[in-house]
């Protein structure tokens, strides 16, 4: 697994794609943080007239973290689209499957490499909050829970993207399927207007679970949702890989 992990991580950073993705993501997040701070300054001024002062941990940080999660929806498919589709197209997937490695090890290596890239991307965004912390007091454990939420969301999104990538040899098709699927996952609660599914299974939308975590509420239901979603799509990817052996 370590060998696959190293190979994938090297592949990410030897191509320009990972660098561009990280740079553009940081640029957009930087802009959003700057604009949000400006908005928050206006809100704080207005709140000074009232009885209750504005709180960055209530009005600024949770929406910022949710927006960062939403942006991941556009960036992660670009990270996962090549994982299996490219190997299929170039014929190296069959070679990889002949190595003395199980499907689980191949999957785990690729998944952890992609998650490491996202983890680095998210870690860089912390600098924005460090700067914000100089302007207004921040509740760091709450921020930590928010980042845990972003990492779990990324894990679930990456697993979905890997599954989509394992289905086709076209990176473009894999990316489009991932975009569509993740967008559906994001807005899923809107489909269940009657609330019947929610009553039984909890919120099915990734947005609802991320929102809880960004507010600083650690709920086992949210953790289980993201972990179960990641496990489900990793399992489905393993089945797709396994089926190749039989199809020949």
């Amino acid at each position, binding site marked *: 697994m370590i060998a696959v992990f190293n190979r994938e991580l090297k592949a990410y950073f030897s191509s320009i794609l990972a660098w561009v993705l990280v740079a553009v993501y940081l640029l957009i997040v930087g802009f959003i943080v700057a604009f949000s701070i400006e908005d928050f300054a206006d809100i704080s001024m207005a709140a000074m007239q009232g009885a209750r002062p504005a709180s960055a*941990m*209530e009005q600024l940080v949770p929406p910022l973290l949710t927006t960062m999660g939403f942006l991941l929806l556009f960036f992660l498919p670009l990270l996962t689209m090549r994982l299996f589709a490219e190997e299929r197209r170039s014929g190296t997937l069959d070679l990889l499957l002949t190595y003395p490695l199980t499907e689980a090890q191949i999957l785990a290596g690729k998944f952890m490499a992609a998650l490491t890239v996202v983890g680095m991307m998210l870690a860089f965004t912390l600098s924005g909050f460090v700067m914000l912390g100089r302007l207004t007091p921040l*509740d760091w*454990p*709450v921020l930590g*829970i928010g980042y845990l939420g972003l990492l779990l969301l990324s894990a679930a999104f990456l697993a979905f993207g890997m599954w989509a990538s394992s289905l086709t040899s076209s990176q473009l098709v894999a990316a489009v399927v991932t975009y569509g699927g993740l967008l559906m996952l994001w807005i899923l609660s809107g489909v269940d*207007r009657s*609330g019947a599914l929610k*009553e*039984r*299974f*909890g919120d*099915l939308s990734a947005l*609802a679970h991320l929102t809880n975590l960004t*507010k*600083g*509420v*650690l*709920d*086992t*239901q949210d953790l*289980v*949702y993201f972990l*179960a*979603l990641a*496990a*489900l799509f990793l*399992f*489905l990817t393993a*089945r797709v890989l*396994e*089926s190749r052996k*039989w*199809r020949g």
Partner: protein
Amino acid sequence: MTAKTRFAISTILSVLLALGIFLVVLMISRQNNHKWDLTRNQRFSLSQQSLDVVRDLKEPVEALAFLAETDDASRQAANELLGNYKLAAPEKFSFQLVDPRKSPLLARKHDVRMPGQVILVSGSQTQRSTAVAEEELTNALLRLSDQAEKKVYFLSGHGERAIEGSDPEALARFQGGLAAEGFKGSVLNLLQAKQVPSDAACRAADPEGLAAERRPPAGDLGTGDRRPS
């Protein structure tokens, strides 16, 4: 059956099984979840008083939160707040969000005319909370947990308005409002009964009744008198 067919069948079955397990895991995690509010002022948790009230409920209570289906923000807030009550005492407190436009009969039954109200139902008793807010809900739960049935006597015998029926002059709405707050309405003819029954929590005097009976006899009544307009 060839090996390929067997593999295809086993793949389909295992995918279905995985999906089933995924949904079961979500269901179990919903029913057995634990929450930690890590915010500095615990702003997403119930106060100790609310926790005590909901845990000390003698009978199960169901909260019906009447909120429009299109009002996502209010529904989300109600879900969180009522979810906290449920989490504190899952065997005693349950809730459902009701769209008054989709369930007009239920809304009419509880005299809900505007969204944003919560009706707490416990057996035949009901209490109304006019807002989806912790203070209001806990007060309504406190009123509901007071098990003794409170009676309101409507004076009759001198052409007072009826307390039931669809006549626009009838006091059905007024009585419905009292019922939502846990009072049971009955008719009382003072000329026949001679005195106000001892179980009266309140006497409702119709302004159109006799002037003498509009004045409460000394010592009979508390501060809860209401006069319909």
